[in-house]
């Protein structure tokens, strides 16, 4: 590497360091706390932390590329467009390639490892299929509240097996409680997305998809279908509430009483339900 190269290289590195030192703390401390999906549950908070770590790593990487190209385009632009002069025939540099490969490999392996650790710690609120691998002890205990989410075109119904299998259209959850969502569908693929709780689990016909969430304090959360499920997909949303424990107990008792005649005729509680398949004639 000759002195001119060294001079340019030093400039790029200095500019990049300057930009990173300014931008990374801003990203972590200013943008970080506002990242989705908020702190509505332990899982949602975990996602915020995860997003912050990703952003903190992505910022210097992005800046490295941007600063490099910005500098190079400015420093090496052709100043006399009427002449055609070739640049030096540099065809590669094995030490640059080695260090690039090493750094990116370390970054990638760290990201994959970190994501795996976070995922396995508490499931991160995602649908894990019928036999979850990430099962913290709290969700196995008798304190955990089982809630079945039954999706169909175009609404969600919630079923509480611990309360006589009562089915409701509204949903309230007790605060600071491990919740086990059992998500299934009666017709096509839907996706149960409780944004503020950080929960997303596809509802598949004939499959039980389990998602865990540890609620925190009282909160109104928004629920949307996140998988295209037909004409009125855009209208498949409602909201729910996380409430103090006593309020939940009285709410569910009221629901049991109100829906008692319907509950009697419901299908017995099951992980999945198979309605008569409606098929096209031909």
């Amino acid at each position: 590497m000759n002195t001119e190269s060294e001079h340019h290289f030093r400039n790029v590195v200095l500019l990049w360091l300057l930009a990173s030192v300014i931008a990374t703390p801003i990203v972590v401390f200013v943008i970080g706390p506002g990242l989705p999906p908020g702190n509505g549950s332990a899982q949602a908070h975990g996602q915020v932390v995860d997003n912050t770590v990703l952003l903190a790593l992505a910022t210097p990487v992005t800046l490295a590329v941007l600063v490099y190209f910005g500098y190079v385009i400015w420093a090496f632009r052709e100043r006399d467009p009427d002449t055609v002069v070739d640049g030096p025939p540099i065809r590669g540099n094995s030490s640059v390639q080695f260090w690039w490969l090493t750094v990116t490999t370390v970054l990638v392996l760290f990201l994959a490892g970190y994501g795996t650790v976070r995922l396995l710690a508490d499931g991160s609120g995602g649908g894990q299929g019928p036999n979850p691998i990430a099962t913290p002890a709290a969700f196995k205990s008798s304190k955990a509240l089982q809630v079945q989410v039954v999706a169909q075109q175009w609404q969600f119904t919630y079923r509480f097996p611990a309360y006589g299998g009562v089915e409701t259209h509204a949903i309230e959850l007790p605060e600071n409680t491990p919740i086990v969502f059992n998500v299934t569908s009666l017709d096509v693929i839907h996706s149960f997305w409780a944004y503020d709780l950080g929960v997303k689990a596809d509802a598949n016909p004939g499959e039980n998809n389990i998602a865990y969430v540890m609620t925190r304090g009282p909160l109104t959360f928004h629920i949307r279908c996140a998988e295209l499920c037909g004409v009125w997909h855009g209208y498949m949303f409602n909201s729910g509430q996380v409430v103090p424990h006593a309020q939940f107990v009285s709410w569910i008792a009221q629901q049991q009483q109100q829906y008692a005649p319907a509950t009697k005729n419901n299908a017995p509680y099951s992980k999945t339900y198979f309605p008569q398949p409606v098929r096209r004639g031909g």
Partner: protein
Amino acid sequence: MSAIAVPATTAPRSGWRQLLGFNLLSGILLGIGGWYLGHFIGGRITGANLTYYSETAGQNDIAIFLGYLLGVVGFLIGLGFANYPLKRLIGHPPSLAERESESLGLYRYFTLSTDHKVVAKQYMVGIGLFFFVGGLNAMLIRTELLQPNVHVFGANQYLTLVGMHGSMMMGIMTSGILGPFANWLVPIMIGSRRMAFPRIESFTFWLLMAGSVILITTIFFGGFQTGWTGYQPLGAQNTAGYDAYIGFFALVGVSMMLFGFNLIATIITMRAPGMTWSRLPIFVWATFATATLMLLAAPMLIAALLMGAMDRTVQTTFFIAGAGGSAYLFQNLFWVFGHPEVYVLALPGMGIVLELLPVFSRKPLWGYRLAVAGLLGIAFLSFFVWQHHLFVSGINADLRPFYMLSTELISLPTGFIFLCAMGTLWRGRIRLTVPMLFCLAWIFNFLWGGISGVFNSDVPSDITTHGSFFVMAHFHYTIMGGLIFAFFAAIYYWVPKMYGYKLNEKLGKVHFWVMFIAFNATFAPLFGLGFMGMPRRVVTYSAGFQGLNDWVSVSAYVLGLSMLVFIFNVVWSLAIKREPAEPNPWHSKSTEWQLPTPVPVHDFNTVPVFDQDPYPYGVEEKPSGVPSAVPAGGST
């Protein structure tokens, strides 16, 4: 090189009598005839057996599928694709030459042409047309999203627009760069005079056009509500408009598969003497990697669609839970195709950028082997990542850490591509021409696409972003910001050689800046909308999102207007001004620029011999570069 056809000796038909031959007109007529015949047969078959008959008239899937099938067969026969096998059967195989005569003029573009340069231009116009239609769909989608409630289209019309936009862009644009540019460039760059299978080359193009027309017919059958992913069992439940989706994507799949097969065969077998693997231009390597993906991935799609078609017609239950099938099956098959497919869209763009950067920084490609490793590495890894589309679906949840790792590993070979781009510019003499601007914009856009992809690949983060506008913004940054910007770079760069007229540089710069700024103004806010919880493909949204959505819609209109600047530039430069281009306006050292403009039908008069790497910039001994044999016409 012995199999090269000699120029035609028989005089072609002239004037109106040309219309009587095998061409687009007879293709369309036979295609329409085939549609009615198939529809009639389908109606008769199912009329006898009422259980296969659907509820409403015009919704008979068997009749519609048979109509599409015979319609396509009729179209291809009308274009003359049956002539060769039929003549061969009776012992009189026609030579390639009779369709390659330049004296046929414009007529060649409406026929089965075996000249790779004609097919490339057919692709360019055909794909441009449907790209324009797909873009108009996007404008209509953004119009509906100006308000949070339904105000222009109904929910069904809206979802049909979304599905058509997605299918058209993801289906047709698989050949967006390879169609026009690989067909035109690969034979010339490797020193061949044609593709390995010239009739298949033309076949893939006309099949793609037939498929595109079929997609548009969905509006006559009630549209489809599944988006481009076509998930089952929603698809089984859709009206007959979904048949058009199946017909379209199946034909795209066949076209992709044959195109990939043809390109691989060409690159392996048709290279001129001295064109070793380590001397292949990087665009040819990108084409080779892409072609491998096309050949291996498309059969999965065809299988999935065939099963879907059977569910809809002969009452199988591949995807019906509770009747022995599973909705997961379609998702798996679709994404085993679908993820390699997005790299079918991305890799040619990388090839174009790495091919053009050396020209406009006047330096050899930096790290040629690393770039090849990057392209092949992406192609290889892309087959092992598909379940990252299904992180929250509940399928194989135990394997999510593996798919997270494999997905993030793709950033290593992608990083190679970036490193090679960075090294190529280092200490170059950079000229900011219009193609170069588009290449640099590709780097900028793909950077954001790649960084946001890391968030999608990370399972905890993806749980919120999955199925939201964040994902939408991510893949528009990689595909629109990657493929389409590279597409325009290639157009501005190669049109002077392909058409003989240079596109206006000033209008090109206006086009670039409007498109670049409007593109970022359109898609950057979508990351925010997704983060805030707006799902994809919804016709209504929270009133609080209206401000950002309106901003996005207005930016999208400006983005659409930038395409009009481009169209104006094309009309102005190629039809009105018609300023002949120099043989080598960019002072490139690639093979194609050493040929005279326009490039003669048979490209080279003698077999070229290659004795150096494709980027001899800064090498004093051989300033004229590339093939040591005298090219046809001997200009430059």
